[in-house]
């Protein structure tokens, strides 16, 4: 949710440092730092510790097993399937989600009458929660009474079993996740499109460039910083926000191979931690996900510095 371009990750040398006082800044910072320390950093360390135990939060039992939890996870076919499914789901939602929202934002940024109303109608779904999205889609795609199958049955005589067929359920969750993410991406794309240098594109147009050429040759490269930023926020969203959606829509199912077709990493973590009570195994999964998020963030900063020009 931090927008690039304005990003200055290192604190300034203090040219704004106006007020005096040694203790005062710490008084202002203390509430934030205390909450971060207790509810973010302490649990993070505790997660790493628990990953080395065969533990059960409910029973309160703990037994040190070293790296056994990790070894078990990495050699488990079910976990590998879940990881692969998460990868495919993430790639699909990020790719199609960003392409669609860029197209829509571009369309909504055209100077037509009522443009601000169109923009509002495109971004309001941001305020709909993943759980509501799951509930609505569950009814829409209900095999017997859903309106989608009523329509498909009428037109083509087919009534797919959306929630019982692994491939269809996977596709459905992916589609719902793309739908849910559109508004957020459109907000950021609209903001950046409006900040594009209009004169550059005008010049291209006067030089005889077609609208498609203006878009791909001029606008698209200029939008690379925001696209880059959105790729990473969308990866994080696909990894975590998918939980409510899949929990309501499919409960991680239907079964295929060694795991449910729509069981993604975070769902598996919840299942093992709070349904199967395999706390140590769940903590090991959490540790792996922490490493994944750290890697994604590191890539973002690393590649961001090198390839993408953020401007001033």
């Amino acid at each position, binding site marked *: 949710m931090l927008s690039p371009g304005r990003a200055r990750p290192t*604190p300034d040398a203090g040219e704004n440092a106006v007020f005096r006082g040694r203790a005062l800044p710490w008084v202002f910072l203390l509430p934030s730092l205390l909450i971060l320390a207790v509810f973010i950093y302490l649990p993070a360390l505790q997660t790493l510790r628990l990953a080395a135990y065969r533990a059960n939060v409910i029973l309160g039992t703990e037994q040190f097993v070293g790296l056994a939890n990790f070894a078990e996870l990495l050699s488990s076919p079910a976990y590998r399937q879940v990881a692969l499914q998460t990868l495919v789901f993430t790639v699909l939602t990020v790719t199609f989600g960003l392409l669609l929202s860029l197209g829509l934002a571009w369309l909504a940024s055209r100077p037509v009458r009522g443009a601000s109303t169109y923009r509002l109608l495109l971004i309001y779904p941001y305020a709909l929660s993943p*759980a509501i999205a799951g509930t609505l889609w569950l009814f829409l795609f209900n095999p017997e009474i859903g309106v989608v199958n009523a329509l498909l049955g009428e037109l083509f005589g087919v009534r797919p079993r959306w929630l019982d067929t692994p491939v269809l359920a996977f596709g459905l969750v992916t589609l719902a996740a793309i739908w849910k993410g559109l508004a957020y991406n459109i907000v950021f794309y609209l903001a950046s499109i409006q900040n594009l240098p209009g004169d550059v594109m005008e010049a291209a147009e006067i030089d005889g460039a077609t609208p498609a050429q203006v878009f791909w040759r001029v606008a698209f490269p200029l939008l690379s910083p925001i696209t880059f930023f959105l790729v990473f926020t969308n990866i994080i969203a696909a990894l975590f926000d998918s939980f409510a959606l899949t929990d309501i829509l499919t409960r991680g199912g239907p079964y295929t191979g060694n795991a449910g077709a729509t069981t993604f990493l975070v769902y598996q973590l919840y299942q093992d931690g709070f349904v199967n009570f395999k706390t140590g195994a769940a903590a090991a999964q959490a540790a792996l996900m922490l490493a994944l998020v750290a890697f994604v963030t590191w890539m973002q900063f690393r590649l961001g510095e090198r390839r993408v020009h953020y401007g001033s």
Partner: protein
Amino acid sequence: MAVKHPAAPPARADRAAPRSRRARGVWVTHAALILAILIISAPLIFAVIKSTQTSSVVLSPSLLPGGAFLQNLSGVWEDAHLGRYMRNSLVVAVCVTAGKTTLALLAALAFVYFRFPLKGAAFTLVLLSLMLPTEVLIIALFDLVSRDLKWANTYAAIIVPFLASATGTFLFRQHFLSIPTSLADAARIDGCGPLRYLTHILIPMSTNTIGALAVIQFVYAWDQYIWPLVIMQQDDKQVVQVGLRKLIEVGGQTDWGAVMAGAVITALPPLIVFTALQKQFSRGFALTEDK
């Protein structure tokens, strides 16, 4: 504005042809936008229609609005405790939004207007927390909150851990840095302390950023799902997102009219906040016509 069309007479003679093409392009744009908005809104429109139908009509493909909305709503409001879930979510979302905004303002104040040792380390500590989503910490967080703090089934469990905001601190810091230092200098010379400067000068100058953040934080707090699902075992403290899940799983027969009424009502508070602060939200992210 993406492309500005000059109002001055065209310099070239071949300007007429592109113009008619452009006029057609405008209608294509309108049509495409309307179609896109209809497709995107379809699930919500569908939910609104279905929430008004009686239980005999709701299972049919009929898309004609009925008159049973209040009946459907009163069903879920009392019998399925939607009213209670909504009140819980409202308390949580308002507290989290207000708390996050306050703490982020104070933290940004410290980072921008003070020079102190370990400032860089403190800032890194705030920023790095972005890399640690609650979902990943949930196992250890559950342990801490339920066993050590004994907060299970309390509002504190779903409010306090979310009061610090790296995003808020960062955005307020960026915004404060864009305000001329001379203002703070003048205030200090006039004998104005940092807190007074914050409440009298900075906050009134930050309404757009505060509005934009309030939308984001309210939506985030309202949407909480996995954490309340595990930490709230008592139904009377549960939030409305998890309540929706319970509406669906009542026995074998789901009362879809009632569920849709519940979903529509659940969607309202963040939509109201979003609509009310839409101008600030847009300005906060520079979405307006003229920057």
